[in-house]
């Protein structure tokens, strides 16, 4: 049985936010809710990297552990889903989640939380597969149609990968090997391709030698 996983390749993500848009459009998620977001670290500096994050469908999901009504369940494909008919919108899952995946539409008085909404790996929810109720509450069930999550399928640089964990891991491993090989071919040490921005003194030295 496949175990579904996302993987975002920081070397490829170009922060186009196509995955965010694709997800919002495909699942028609409520206002103020973004099931997926792109976070950029060292924005504008050397060593800038972007990562697309959503629910990572943990094997031992903290959200499920802290939920006061036990509304989470894991499908046989390893997708963590929740039942909005049981959810009370308390927000505990958001406090426990390492990735900030659970989102809450502000639909009550005084901006109180509505029922939680999060990435479903495009696998719908506990309603009847393909039903209107399922789409209204949880969005598209693409897995049932034999498709993968749209965010990953739409990704222009193929930074965001989704699918069986073993396949994803193989693809990524291949990429790492190729990158190492190409940097060796260009005579550059892998460790010299620092993530860290160039130190100030080194930068001025380079400028001085050029000028």
């Amino acid at each position: 049985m496949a175990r579904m996983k996302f993987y975002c390749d920081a070397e490829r993500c170009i922060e186009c936010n196509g995955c965010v848009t694709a997800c919002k459009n495909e699942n028609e998620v409520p206002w103020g809710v973004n099931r997926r977001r792109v976070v950029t670290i060292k924005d504008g500096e050397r060593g800038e990297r972007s990562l697309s994050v959503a629910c990572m469908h943990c094997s031992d999901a903290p959200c499920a552990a802290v939920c006061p009504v036990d509304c989470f369940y894991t499908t046989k494909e390893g997708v963590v889903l929740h039942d909005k008919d049981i959810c009370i919108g308390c927000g505990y899952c958001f406090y426990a989640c390492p990735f900030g995946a659970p989102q809450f539409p502000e639909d009550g008085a005084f901006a109180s939380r509505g029922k939680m909404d999060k990435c479903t790996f495009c696998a719908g929810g506990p309603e009847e597969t393909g039903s209107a109720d399922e789409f209204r509450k949880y969005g598209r069930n693409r897995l049932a149609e034999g498709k993968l999550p749209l965010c990953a399928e739409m990704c222009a640089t193929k930074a965001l990968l989704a699918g069986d964990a073993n396949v994803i891991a193989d693809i990524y491993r291949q990429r790492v090997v190729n990158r190492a090989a190409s940097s060796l071919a260009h005579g550059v040490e892998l460790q010299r391709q620092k993530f860290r921005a160039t130190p100030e003194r080194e930068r001025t030295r380079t400028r001085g030698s050029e000028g």
Partner: protein
Amino acid sequence: MRHWWVWVWLCLGATLFPPVHAAGPSTDKVLNPGAELWNEVRGRQAAPATTQVQGRDSQVLVNEWGEHFRDYRRQRFVRYSGYLLAGVVSLLLLYHLLHGGLEVTESGRKVLRFELTERIVHWLLAGVFLLLTVTGVVLAFGRFVVLPWSGPEVFAVIASASKEGHNLFGPLFIVALLWFFVLFVGRNLPRLVDIYWLIRAGGMLGGGHPAAGFFNGGEKIWFWILTIGGLAVSTSGVVLDFPALVEGRNPLVLALVVHGIAAVVLIAASFGHMYLGTLGVKGSLEGMKSGLVDEAWAHAHHVLWYEELNRKAQAESSAREQGQ
């Protein structure tokens, strides 16, 4: 040790040819790019991350408090507060079975103990407290206690109603608490006689009933537990009720932890208060219902207050005689 010379050569080799990394360029220049990226992802570096998505903590990639919150809720809060509440109930039950409630022979003459306003505010506070206790306990322990019995569908209704009710009636608790505080704080200031009362444990150690004013030392302790605990649950409750007041998720987690601990302490103490107000000391409940208590009850439990009442009555009657 036939091969001792191997060790000698190895040691010699180690001194003559030190490991490459020690002799090579300084290690701080060659950083593992993966490790640095990971440190940034975990938010350990000062540089803040950015994102296009507007939301609570949306720029945070990894929530550092998440596992702590999970550990607190599942391993500590539910377990230890369960122990505390069950322990207090068992202690009270044991005390009642061994000792029984206190009773005094009624004299038939009644004195006024609580004014109507005081009684109304007390029962308003008590009513809201009970409602918040029941709904709060459902939210904290329902998954482990109610859900296995009721099934998810029924429990969803109970839990949803509990959450809405808890959020809705929470602010009323603050109003009732402040009003109650204003009415009763004057009679709950600590006195020397309360310390004596507490040392004697209210007479539970034998040797007769120690003297007490309008409220005894135990009642005063409950009053201050209620005030301080009430303030803690109220402040944290306002934050939880109106999440828009704070930014990020850590203040909310902090508020939830404070709220839970303070609430459990309050509930445990309220069990003691409820027991002593009903079964523990007979005649007390009547005082909060009708406002009247028996003179014998007043003399037995609050003798200083009783004497003060008598002095006042005598002063009034003598003043009346002088007026005539």
